[in-house]
């Protein structure tokens, strides 16, 4: 039994697991069937072949399909930069504040009411004032991302610090830990798995607010591509940009998980 489990986990590491691709393949098939049977008009949903060519051209520029030929790297880099900036900002502020709130009653009383009131404003509600303050462009987008990603990161860091087992605190104290030691050597490592959950949530939200920020009319970025293409009735490229975000979002999550796995202790109970 143990052997079977072990051999399965080893082999699944080597061979690609095909099960996750069944659903996308089925959706693609349905899409192709509908398109080539002429059941959906092209201006609503172009055929998959057309979209595939547009995608290839968007990335490589080999087909010279139109204004977006070969611009993927430029737009993707602009978007990635905004997500990276906004998410880093949210992390740098959210994790320490959250941990502090979780382990100090005074900090909680100072911060919690304000943070949770501000949290009640939906992220979109910040768009007008952000445009007034930062104009149109990267600063507004980064601001929106940082703001939206801050909350799950903060809340989870606080939760992680708050749910540290009291027994670990006592154990550290009787072993001679100072208050600073407690924070660095007990609260932070004990809270880390929960902090990691918050970071993953925050990164997901970052991509959502990236698109919101870029819809306001910036010259580059995948959200901008989508919005401009809509004006031109260039539906293929809207779909391609959406697909790009899906792929980039998933890849960034995988990268974050890989990073966190290196950071987390190997055998956390």
């Amino acid at each position, binding site marked *: 039994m143990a052997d079977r489990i072990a051999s399965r986990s080893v082999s699944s590491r080597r061979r690609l697991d095909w099960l996750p691709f069944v659903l996308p393949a089925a959706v693609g098939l349905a899409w192709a069937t509908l398109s080539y049977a002429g059941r959906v008009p092209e201006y609503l949903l172009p055929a998959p072949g057309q979209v595939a060519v547009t995608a290839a051209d968007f990335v490589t520029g080999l087909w010279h399909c139109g204004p977006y030929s070969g611009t993927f790297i430029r737009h993707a880099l602009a978007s990635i930069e905004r997500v990276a900036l906004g998410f880093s900002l949210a992390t740098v502020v959210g994790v320490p504040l959250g941990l502090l709130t979780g382990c100090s009653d005074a900090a909680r009383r100072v911060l919690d009411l304000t943070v949770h009131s501000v949290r009640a404003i939906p992220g979109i509600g910040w768009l007008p004032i952000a445009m007034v303050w930062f104009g149109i462009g990267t600063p507004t987008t980064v601001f929106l991302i940082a703001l939206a990603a801050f909350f799950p990161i903060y809340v989870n860091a606080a939760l992680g610090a708050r749910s540290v087992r009291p027994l670990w605190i006592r154990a550290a104290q009787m072993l001679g830990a100072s208050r600073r030691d407690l924070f660095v050597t007990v609260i932070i490592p*004990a809270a880390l798995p929960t902090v990691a959950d918050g970071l993953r949530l925050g990164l997901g939200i970052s991509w959502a607010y990236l698109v919101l920020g870029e819809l306001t009319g910036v010259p580059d970025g995948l959200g901008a591509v989508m919005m401009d293409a809509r004006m031109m009735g260039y539906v293929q490229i809207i779909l391609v940009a959406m697909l790009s975000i899906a792929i980039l979002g998933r890849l960034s999550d995988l990268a974050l998980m890989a990073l966190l796995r290196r950071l987390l202790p190997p*055998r956390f109970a």
Partner: protein
Amino acid sequence: MDTGTIQSCHIVIDKVGKYFANENGGLWALRDLSLCVRRGEFLCVVGPSGCGKTTLLSLVAGFDTPTEGQVYCSGQPVTGPGPDRGVIFQEDALFPWLSVAGNVCYALHRRGIPRRQATQQAMHFLELVGLQEFAAYFPGQLSGGMKQRAALARVLANRPQALLMDEPFGALDALSRMEMQQLLLTIWRELAPTILFVTHDVDEAIFLADRVYVMTARPGRICRQLQVPLPRPRTAEVLTSQGLMDIKHEVLNLLLEANAQAHSRQRIVNPL
């Protein structure tokens, strides 16, 4: 307690009371409890579950402060936890994010002992508890008995003057428990710490201790102390010896009597 006793004993608990407020009004977990532990002595407190043993150890460890009375350690009032009093908890309290060796090194790092030296010392104490092959393991990979061995090594590496042990072997099977008791006696003989050991297990208390205090519940107080004149070193045969049986008989009678009294008191207070 007079100042002479406070100065001469390692740990002195002087007319201590501990009150817990709760939604039903609160209760005295301990009341008017006094005892003293001499330096180098192995002292057991035996009492039923809920009689306040964990509360008592928390006060000595300095995790909590008494409502009444005072706890002294080496003649000084206890004001907080400190590395001179190592605690072995009832539940697993190892840090799951550190390896076994990392756990044992924890206190050594806090004292600024260099990494190499700390690791060397940790290995020494892991050997002492028979866990040297598991240094790189994480607590989640250990059995209950091994966890308590690691906990013991972690505390011993700090060279505490006193060990406070809260039913440390209560969750183990009978065989592991006996092994751990033997190990503890060996360590006590070699390192000569003062040990304050609380348990609900009468056999365990008598087998280990020089002296046994019998504790009763609601409020937790000491009702009797007994010398254990059994010869050392104590082996498994002691567990079935007539000497142990005699003392056990006496302790059980005390506990049953106290229990019966508590019930009759309850009946008067509460006619239902």
